């Protein structure tokens, strides 16, 4: 089952890799964007889908990493490896600190605390002008070089994002089928039973929270390079909510679902808006449709039907 799923996923990644050179630059950049948000949505799925913790602050780690990369790359001319390490480390540390505060809560309270913590990061991005340049944002982040390979053109950068996304998918996939991941699923099912069985529930949740932040940081690193600009909009609530919607749309607890949800939202946002100024209305209709007809998300509904 799992082996077959990985095989097909590998095929999809291979298909994407083969297809890419034939694509015009714009769909290619959108596909890159979809991959980046796919990583963000998958990182959130570890929390929401597998552990049952709905976080409204995922943009904080995404944004912290993006700011770290943008500032180091523009002001200190740090290369790809240094920026990536710093970005992911900052996201992880942020998540490690926030986790201590947030993990004690569950349900709506968890939602509210992660929301508040996310707003703290947004506030810093917005008001700590001497560091973050405030509303101006940090612009002119150059695309990096990977050894001798220049990642500036859309195609190499797409491959770079594809490899990182495949890696992230593999690692997260291994995580959720590991005993640790099964423990998380158990916590989602019944926290008290897991406690009675002798599991350290707090530690499981905390580690999941920090790892989720780490992978959100990976997405943030890619985003800073992809967009060349990082501003307060990247860490604001809307970005967190969008990540949550991607997971809900694709199917929480499926890993591949949130990635598909991310792709769907990126394409809806950018393609539908070409044809109508009312694209938000269409996006809204899609959400309502999914909630009414596929409350488990697109992938969830497909798996459910075949059961």
């Amino acid at each position: 089952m799992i082996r077959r799923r990985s095989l097909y996923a590998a095929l999809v990644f291979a298909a994407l890799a083969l297809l890419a050179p034939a694509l015009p630059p714009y769909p290619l950049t959108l596909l890159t964007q979809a991959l980046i948000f796919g990583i963000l949505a998958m990182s959130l799925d570890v929390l929401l889908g597998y552990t049952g913790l709905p976080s409204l602050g995922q943009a904080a780690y995404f944004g912290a990493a993006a700011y770290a990369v943008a500032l180091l790359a523009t002001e200190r001319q740090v290369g790809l490896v240094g920026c990536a390490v710093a970005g992911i480390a900052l996201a992880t540390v942020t998540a490690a600190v926030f986790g201590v505060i947030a993990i004690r809560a569950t349900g709506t309270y968890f939602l509210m605390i992660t929301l508040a913590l996310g707003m703290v990061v947004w506030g810093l991005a917005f008001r700590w002008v001497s560091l973050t340049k405030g509303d101006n944002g940090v612009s002119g982040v150059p695309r990096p070089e990977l050894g001798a390979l220049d990642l500036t053109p859309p195609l190499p950068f797409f491959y770079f994002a594809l490899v990182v996304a495949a890696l992230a998918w593999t690692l997260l996939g291994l995580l959720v089928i590991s005993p640790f991941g099964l423990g998380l699923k158990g916590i989602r099912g019944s926290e008290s039973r897991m406690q009675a069985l002798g599991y350290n529930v707090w530690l499981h949740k905390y580690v999941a929270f920090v790892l989720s932040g780490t992978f959100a940081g990976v997405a943030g690193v890619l985003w800073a390079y992809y967009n060349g600009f990082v501003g307060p909009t990247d860490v604001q609530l809307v970005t967190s909510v969008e990540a949550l919607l991607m997971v809900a749309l694709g199917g929480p607890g499926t890993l591949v679902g949130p990635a598909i949800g991310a792709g769907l939202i990126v394409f809806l946002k950018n393609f539908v808006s070409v044809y109508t100024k009312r694209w938000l209305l269409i996006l809204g209709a899609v959400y309502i449709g999914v909630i009414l007809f596929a409350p488990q998300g697109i992938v969830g509904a497909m798996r459910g039907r075949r059961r």
Partner: protein
Amino acid sequence: MAHRLLARVALVLVAAALVAPAPAAAQTGPIKIGLLSPLSGGASAIGKDMLNGAELYLDEIGRQVAGRKIELIVEDTEGVTATALTKARKLVDQDRVAILTGALLASTGYALHPFVDAAKIPATYPVMSSDDLTQRKPAKWVVRTGWNSSQAVHPFGEWVAKKLKYKKIVTVGFDYAFGWETVGGFQRTFEESGGQIIQKIWTPLNTTDFSPFIAQIRRDADAVFVVFFGRGSLQFVKQYSDSGLKAKIALLGNGTTTDESVLPQMGDEALGVYTALHYSAALDNPQNVKFAKAFEAKAGKVPSYYAETNYTNARWIVEAIKAINGKVEDREAFLAALKKVELKEFPRGPVVIDRWGNPIQNVYIRKVERVGGKLQNTVILTYPQVSQFWRYNPEEFLKAPLYTRDYPPCKFC
């Protein structure tokens, strides 16, 4: 189960690749102009004026130049830098526009120029007034057809100190590049003429309630100088008047604060406010009278500076296309032509481009008055041919840092 799903994903991807448009045929097809405009959000009134201004000129020439059709492709930026970047990418990569233009925020200007320079796509900035793009960090592929942030407030600061004889002024402005550069320019000339800035207050771009900021204003000030636009202007001027402060401490603003994009929605609260800008709908020259009449017929309202600058910008682009006989595919030649456009008769007055790519143009000191039942920016003084460097020596001016939140420092705070 999963494989079917994945197979479907692959299918969708292939389909997406097939429907994606092939590169447009060069030379014979229409010339595409990509316009970024904040058509939704807090600056949507500005966005509509920008679009109407550009369309007005293109319609006047029948959307045709040098034997080729002109196609205007409009994208909504929501007044957000990140969205503007995404849409710019779409216009260049998907629509393959020959030229990129429009957009609102000075901060967007800074974020967009690395993309423009990397894509080597000719771009004009009719609105984005980011000082440094024609000063310390000149952008090769950007031609400014509008103005820069501190241009109009340099003369204004001196005028306020010498003519209005205000000694102590508090500044309140949007907390980003445009606010910083405008307040900085005003502070420099105002203080050099003997005035004192005694407090600087910064408000976030998305502020909707200004009362906490108004409450902070020092009551020993002679006047308040504000930098706002769009919804922020409407809200601040109203709340300032409602607070009762306007009767005690005079209100001064940069040009966009009482710009005609918001003036028709204002009431008596705006009366008597002095501002400075390189345009006013009330300008009495033949070009502007003709333009204002045509614009009112199209849009049903008086033209704002945003409308004028996009009208002028469209004309500018068309003149450049004429000069190269419609061969916009030669981007270097197109860019060179854009930089060489020489037109004397604009609604805003005569314009010459300086060595750094910024217009030298008239700056008008304006006062909001009610004429024939409607508010207008009455021009009370014209500073002819003001450069971005004012009366300073350009080389020395460029040695000083860019105006920011903390520069010039607030010596009298």
